[in-house]
């Protein structure tokens, strides 16, 4: 084991790369749960984003259309969740589980129907990397952040923007009020239902951007189930980050770092003993359980999170 394996520039670059899809899903989760709707269908939104981004990239050869399709697909899946959980007041966990199964089944089904066993075409248009040439000469930094994908930077911008939005704007205050005490929010004239719809739709689009990053930014292809549970890690990052965008990013970076280490430490030994790198994968989940249990800091959900809301007098 060497320092290079632990904190080398390429490890940091990988951390940022791996953290980005998690952070985007976590941002989606944060926006949704801050308004009081639990959305565990983030994984599904991500996956349909992956797939439909690739399909439209293949058909149109236009990356903007492909991105739009990815976001729209994630948004539509989220719309189903919003309809079930806000309008029908269905159980949000069951609805979310159903949509995750649907997303996996649908994308795998269509992948088989459209591309058979040969896989998606290899000449897909992709989201390019942003080459920061002025960093070229600078050691370390140049390698770490000089060639990241555009979506990485967009994701970082979104973190900052949504942090300001939620905690420094009037609309953000209302957004959070709906998640903490919807009745009080409604009393002062906030439309709870509309706010929650907006939140769930936004969460689907954010998660789908993470999906588009995976398929159009990194892999340049689609493989069945390629999100591999990143939507769920995103939920963990949201909780570990205490339901704030900046916290979610921090948590995602920690999880991404663990992920990067499990690659860079592959085969590494300490005193002749091979490191169980696979166990690093458990890090996000165990940290999150400890955080929720109050052993590592304190993590509290919005008060009305997961509770359907009914306008007074509707009954």
């Amino acid at each position, binding site marked *: 084991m060497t320092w290079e394996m632990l904190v080398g520039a390429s490890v940091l670059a990988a951390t940022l790369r791996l953290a980005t899809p998690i952070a985007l899903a976590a941002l989606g989760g944060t926006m949704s*749960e801050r308004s009081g709707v*639990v959305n*565990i269908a983030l994984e599904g939104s991500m996956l349909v984003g992956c797939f439909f981004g690739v399909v439209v990239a293949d058909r149109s050869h236009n990356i903007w259309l492909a991105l739009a399709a990815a976001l729209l697909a994630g948004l539509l899946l989220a719309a*189903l969740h919003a309809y*079930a959980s806000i309008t*029908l*007041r*269905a*159980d*949000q*966990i*069951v*609805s979310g*589980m*159903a*949509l995750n*199964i*649907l997303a*996996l*089944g*649908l994308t*795998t*089904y*269509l992948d*088989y*129907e459209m591309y058979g066993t040969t896989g998606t075409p290899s000449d897909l248009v992709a989201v390019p990397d942003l080459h920061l040439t002025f960093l070229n000469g600078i050691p370390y930094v140049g390698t770490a952040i000089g060639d990241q994908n555009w979506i990485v930077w967009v994701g970082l911008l979104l973190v900052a923007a949504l942090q300001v939005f939620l905690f420094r704007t009037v609309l953000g205050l209302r957004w959070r009020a709906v998640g903490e005490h919807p009745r009080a929010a409604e009393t002062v004239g906030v439309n709870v239902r509309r706010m929650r719809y907006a939140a769930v739709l936004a969460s689907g689009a954010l998660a789908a951007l993470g999906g588009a990053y995976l398929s159009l930014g990194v892999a340049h292809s689609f493989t069945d189930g390629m999100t591999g*549970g990143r939507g*769920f*890690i995103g*939920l*963990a990052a949201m*909780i570990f980050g205490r339901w704030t965008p900046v916290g979610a990013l921090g948590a995602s970076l920690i999880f991404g770092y663990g992920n990067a280490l499990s690659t860079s430490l592959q085969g590494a030994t300490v005193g002749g003993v*091979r490191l*169980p790198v*696979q*166990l*690093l*994968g*458990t890090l*996000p*989940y*165990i940290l*999150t*359980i400890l955080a*929720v*249990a*109050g052993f590592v800091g304190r*993590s*509290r*959900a*919005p008060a*009305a*999170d*997961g*509770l*359907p809301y*009914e306008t007074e007098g*509707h*009954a």
Partner: protein
Amino acid sequence: MTQLQQPATTGPGTESPAPSVGQLTFQWAAGPAIPVLSVAIALVIGAVFVLLSGNDPVAAYSALVQGAFGTPYDITETLVSAIPLVLTGLAVAVAFRTGLFNIGAQGQLLVGALAAGWAGAQFATLPGFLLMPIVILLGITGGAFYGGIVGLLKALRGVNEVITTIMLNYTIVFVMHWLLQAGPMTAQNAFGTPASTPIGAGARLPVIIPNELVLFSRLHAGIFLAALAVVVFWFLLWRTPLGYQLRAVGLGARAAAQAGIDPALHMVLVMAIAGGFAGLGGMIEVSGVFGRVYDGFSSSYGFDAIAVALLGKNSPLGIVFAALLFGAFVHGGAYMQSHAGISSNLVAIIQAFVLFVIAAETLVRSLTRRRHGRKPVEAIA
């Protein structure tokens, strides 16, 4: 104490308590309208997908049925697929009855499989009458331990079981990678898929259909364990004081506490029991089907279990029927793909809509029946 509220889905209390087997059958027969309707709607939606992708839905569904029940061999294979679904379905249902949403049947099943696979290989030389009970016991204990963690965290720290179970499902996947790829359970000469050392002959559940009857049938004695588990589920919940207390907590934790039943204690107990059912399911897969633990084996039995429990209305016979239906989907889907050329993932789409309709339906019904009734499964945290 909002966190003790029961889930609003087909949770506990949707039917009157303490029925006999006969009553249960009757109840399910009298009230399967919603499950049947949800399956019907899902099948119609599935047919639309088949049509849109330029295939013939009639051909698809007849291939599905043909694949699931066409030959005696297929029927036994459908049963093989249904067995773990029964066990994981029970794991979800028993928790539902106590007001908890156990998304963790998948992880509990894997821990049970790992524990059983370890014991089966470790004591491989023991004779069957000694080894089999050890393997069964370890499978159940492994799952119970993993489920018990969830109950403990809920009882002691108020942690929502939905979060814990999701996190633990993924945790065990990585622990399994380690154990089977480069850890203590990794077999010396496992080619291809990482796997554990094969279990001893005494730990194998025998195939119960002789070759003269159905050639190469894999239907194993695990079906008896599954049947026994269904009876235990029914007896425990409706014929023992503990079961009464569990259901009382499910019907209303605060009222139960008033009556001297400790909800926290019962949450720990029920999650351990739930884990035990799922762990037994994992053990059966190892002992009856694979003979060892493969990395990434049993990809989704624990998740299908949620649909099985909800579709079966958390009742013993309902779960059996739902597991058979989903078992038929699993086995028939493969045939449909190879013979009708339609991706077996159509089955996943159908399953998703079954679940979605059930989720939406219970609320539609509760809207019409009682408007200020129950709260939903509480927030994720």
